């Protein structure tokens, strides 16, 4: 009985944890157009797809993060958007601004996820890096099954300035399971003092019983 409970607990932990959060990289999974040149405006945008396998998150919500690696001379020219298999879209990055006007920095090497930091235009390359918030939230893209072809679109809105999409990946992970209930409130010092006094009194009584003659 006790052994079966242990196995059940382990299985629940495995299914609820991040073990199913397997990123699907474009290059390694044989996605399309990675690497590929980003067409300079007014050329067609670059479209790249990857196929995401089925994801199971029993007892928790799936969460989405998208890693993008691209090289480009003028990051502020770019708009990057993501579309799920059902056709819903979110914008990851759009015409990022620098200190004065469009960001003239180079390259993006960043992970986009809801709740990330606001993107900034850094002087060093990569100009956009770290874990950053997309321009529009990603959570709605998980309203339907994530299984299927996801599409990344990169648009270069200004003529001159070249670049290429090197790789990107989709990571549909599982959020930590919700806690069973609220934790008990911490003990007040008065309650702690009362318990201590009771324990001391009991110990004192026990000592007295040991010393008293039979």
């Amino acid at each position: 009985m006790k052994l079966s409970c242990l196995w059940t607990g382990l299985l629940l932990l495995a299914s609820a944890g991040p073990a199913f959060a397997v990123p699907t990289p474009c290059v390694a999974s044989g996605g399309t157009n990675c690497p590929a040149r980003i067409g300079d405006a007014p050329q067609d945008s670059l479209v790249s797809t990857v196929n995401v396998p089925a994801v199971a998150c029993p007892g928790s919500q799936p969460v989405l993060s998208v890693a993008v690696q691209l090289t480009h001379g003028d990051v502020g020219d770019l708009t990057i958007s993501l579309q799920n298999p059902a056709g819903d879209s979110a914008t990851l990055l759009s015409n990022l601004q620098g200190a004065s006007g469009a960001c003239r920095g180079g390259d993006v090497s960043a992970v986009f996820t809801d709740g990330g930091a606001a993107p900034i235009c850094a002087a060093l390359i990569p100009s956009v890096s770290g874990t950053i918030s997309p321009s529009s939230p990603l959570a709605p893209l998980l309203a339907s099954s994530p299984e299927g072809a996801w599409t990344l679109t990169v648009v270069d809105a200004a003529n001159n300035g070249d670049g290429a999409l090197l790789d990107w990946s989709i990571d549909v992970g599982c959020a930590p399971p919700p806690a069973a209930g609220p934790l008990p409130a911490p003990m007040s010092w008065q309650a702690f003092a009362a318990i201590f006094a009771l324990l001391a009194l009991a110990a004192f009584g026990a000592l007295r019983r040991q010393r008293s003659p039979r």
Partner: protein
Amino acid sequence: MSTSALTGFSRWLTACLAAAACCWSSTAPAAVGTVDAAPAATLLLPYFETDLANPNGTQTSVRISNASATAMLLHATLFTDLGIPTLQFDSYLTGYDSLDIDMRLLFQGIVPQTASAGQDPTDRISPKGPLSQDINFASCSGILPPPGLPPTTPGVLAENTTWNSGTLAAIRAAHTGQASTLWSGQCGAVAHGDNVARGYMTIDTVSYCTMRYPSDPGYFGANSSGDVTYQNVLFGTATTIDRTVQTVYTENLVSVEASPTDPTTTTSGIQTFYGRFNGNTATDGREALGTVWSARNMEGTPIALDTRFVVWRDPGQVVTPFACGGSLPAPFPLTTREVAAFDEEENVTFAANNLMPYATQLVDGATLSPYNFGIVRFDLGLDDGTVRQGYVSSRILRSGARDAMASPASLLMTAPQAQCLGNASAQCANIPPPSFGVGRDVN
């Protein structure tokens, strides 16, 4: 601020103003044979550095513009710092169009996307303005827009792919002094051991898309029968940026004007820009650069100035790849005929003749001059007296500060002028003498 610091700063300011005045005063009409800053048929990027390991290290990017309403076809060629060609590609400009060549991206296999009207009928790759001509170069079909380059690479590459990894590795190795499959494992550049690609680049106007190097037969031809044209319409700038130390230098690309009729560019035996590839027969019709130059030099205290000279030199002959680790191929190392450093009291010191031995390099001013302030005079001929064209510009940096200045050296004598000094032969009859009082020797 101390008096000495003020004096140093005032010198710095004066130099900046002088450089600005030089830029503003370039309004004289273009003259073939004078190396002036005018639209030209060939542009020279005399030196580039691209740190392949660190994108925030030194990088170079180029902007080329078409000064005319006429559509132009360009042919760019990269050379190693020993003057060996490694890579070529064609680009198309509509009238008044501009083109960026970012060397950081180029060494990742990303070439500017352009196409003439025939390859871009909807005008989405090379859009044109209301005053711009946009025509079809039928010879560019299959070449523009650039597929994975170079187009002669075996294997099929989709139009929008980057180069294949093997080609890219070969070109990167070629410009860093490593064994390259471009030359069956031989080397073609100086190995500095720092993974920085170095070299120079030329851009020529051409009449059709070509896969020939300037060193190939047919690239130049008598009576306009070669690939190149004589359309003096190009101008441009090169920006060298080091994000780590936060410095930026921008300078003009070197204009090399062409003429099918001017005696300075059409007289066999008189040096021309591409003379080393055609036996100095002047079939390229491009003016030779200078051989004697003079430039400001500022070093050291009180405000930590540092001068670096870009020195481009004509090897004078075709250079062949060589066994890695062995001696450099002929004619290297190049000697200099005379490098004289003056201080501000006209004291003079002559530098050794082996301090700028390659086809292109960056030379620390402190190695040429013992003086903190002064000028350096370069005769880029060889120590045996042979006249060789070259080019010098100076980059002056105030260490620890972001202000930096780049300006071309003053041209004292072109290569043809030096060739014709005291030469009364017929081939020199139409070569104008150098300015009054300027000779090849300091004393």
